[in-house]
């Protein structure tokens, strides 16, 4: 089984979000970048396929050279090879098109992407890849088992879970549940050393049309201070929720 895991290079959750150039660009100054958490759950599941079922695992990112440390981290976790499509990921359609092209050329059986990135929260890339390549598609995936060509998976739905059966080739939108937080791997020294020698192929982009152009960013208006209610005065809280906030 040939697996491709899509890796988004995103600001760490605790980062302060700021913008530069008249609020048109994300300010990466002092920001720590990580593997998108939803991707990391999927990458870990891919590692199990590699170790228990002999799958090969490549990782891919659409981004400029600054994303390479994030790809190296994925290699240190255990991926076999990395691909970087040398393009600024400004438009999800483009990112998906680039990955779909690589997937077609290399005949991957399984493509795993996080259900969405924690920076742009678009949630588009996995579904677009699947539809472009006519692969089956399951997102919000919380369980995935593959034997031969047969796939058993579960998807988180509003208020529960749905169990599904399908076949390869498949695109999965992964999230917590496909593996648990405690299953995630921190690269060890041996992994980090080996990652330096693994191939990281840079390919040039094939698509440039942008259909969803970011014009600028805005930050939410600063929130007012919390209204503290005395623990002895629960009636006041009920009154505030009823008369002021109008939510009960």
């Amino acid at each position: 089984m040939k697996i491709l895991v899509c890796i988004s290079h995103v600001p760490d959750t605790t980062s302060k979000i700021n913008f530069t150039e008249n609020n048109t660009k994300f300010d990466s100054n002092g920001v720590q970048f990580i593997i998108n958490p939803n991707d990391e759950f999927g990458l870990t599941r891919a590692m199990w396929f590699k170790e228990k079922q002999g799958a090969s695992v490549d990782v891919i990112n659409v981004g400029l050279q600054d994303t390479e440390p994030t790809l190296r981290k994925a290699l240190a976790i255990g991926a076999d090879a990395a691909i970087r499509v040398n393009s600024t990921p400004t438009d999800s359609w483009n990112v998906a098109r680039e990955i779909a092209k690589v997937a077609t050329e290399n005949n991957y059986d399984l493509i795993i992407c996080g259900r969405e990135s924690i920076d742009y929260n678009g949630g588009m890339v996995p579904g677009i890849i699947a539809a472009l390549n006519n692969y089956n598609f399951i997102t919000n995936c919380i369980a995935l088992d593959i034997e031969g060509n047969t796939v058993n998976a579960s998807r988180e739905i509003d208020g529960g879970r749905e169990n599904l059966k399908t076949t390869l080739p498949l695109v999965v939108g992964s999230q917590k549940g496909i593996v648990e937080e405690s299953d995630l791997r921190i690269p060890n020294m041996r992994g980090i050393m080996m990652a330096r020698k693994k191939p990281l192929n840079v390919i040039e982009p094939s698509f440039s049309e942008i259909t969803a152009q970011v014009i600028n960013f805005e930050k939410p208006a600063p929130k007012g201070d919390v209204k503290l209610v005395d623990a002895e005065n629960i009636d006041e809280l009920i009154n505030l929720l009823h008369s002021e906030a109008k939510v009960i």
Partner: protein
Amino acid sequence: MSILIYTENENGNLKKSAFELASYGKALADNANTALNAITINSNNESDLAAYGVEKTFKLVNNAFDEFNANKYAHAIAEAAKKCNANIIILSSSANSKYLAPLLAVKMEAAYASNVVELPSEIEPLKVKRSAFSNKAFSIQELSSPTKIISLAKNAYGIHENKSSNTILDFEIADLSDKIVVTSVDKSSDKVSIADAEIVISGGRGLKGPENWNLIEDLADVLGAATACSKPVSDLGWRPHSEHVGQTGKPVASNLYIAIGISGAIQHLAGVNSSKVKVVINTDPEAPFFKAADYGIVGDAFEVVPELIEKLKVFKTENA
């Protein structure tokens, strides 16, 4: 040119989000000087959409659509969009709609913007504001493809009445085969889901153990709310993962979110920040949640919550 909304139902009854989409779609249609159409799939009460500005409803009734299938549903919406020559398609932010949206985008060769939080400020090109960076910022985008798809963030617009004719047309399409088959669904039918709930009551490690969850459940019962929990609580196995809200769990965009014994780690806040009103109950006045909340009580959940439940019961009987 026209606008099409895909209105979802639960057991045949249109969801609240359907009326919110209609309200939003009507306002957008007025701004764009065009008409609002809807597609329903196996629903019973599509005539109710007349109260919110829908002019035409494509009513699809077909057993092949009894179970949700993203590809089949996207196909149905695409066919309806062609029928009414829709250039803007509006979806909700439910798990199912977000699942089918990119598939629909490919079928329609459409630009797609998710988590849209308000009416577009311009129509051509369509300029939308969407939440990004886990609700820490907004991105303003221009969609330039001939057909555009937007998902409206939950609870972002509200429901506004606007009477219309709403002609209901029977809509038939050929069944489409798909290789994804639902084998079973585990869903608690007696409980309101976090995604659909107006009020969410959430508990954290401050509750000390799963045996104390009756506090959360009793409070949820009084308010007709869904129950949720913080990540440590689901990691410890006190509550199922399906209740975990936050960045790696479920997003919450309810009208009221009450956090009990939750300190408010940044990952948690990222997932619940789009709730309109947030209340925190915590013994530690330094807990970060107090900075994100609208109302707070510094106090012991084991004393505050039982009293809150009793007083709310009285309030509910008086205001029933």
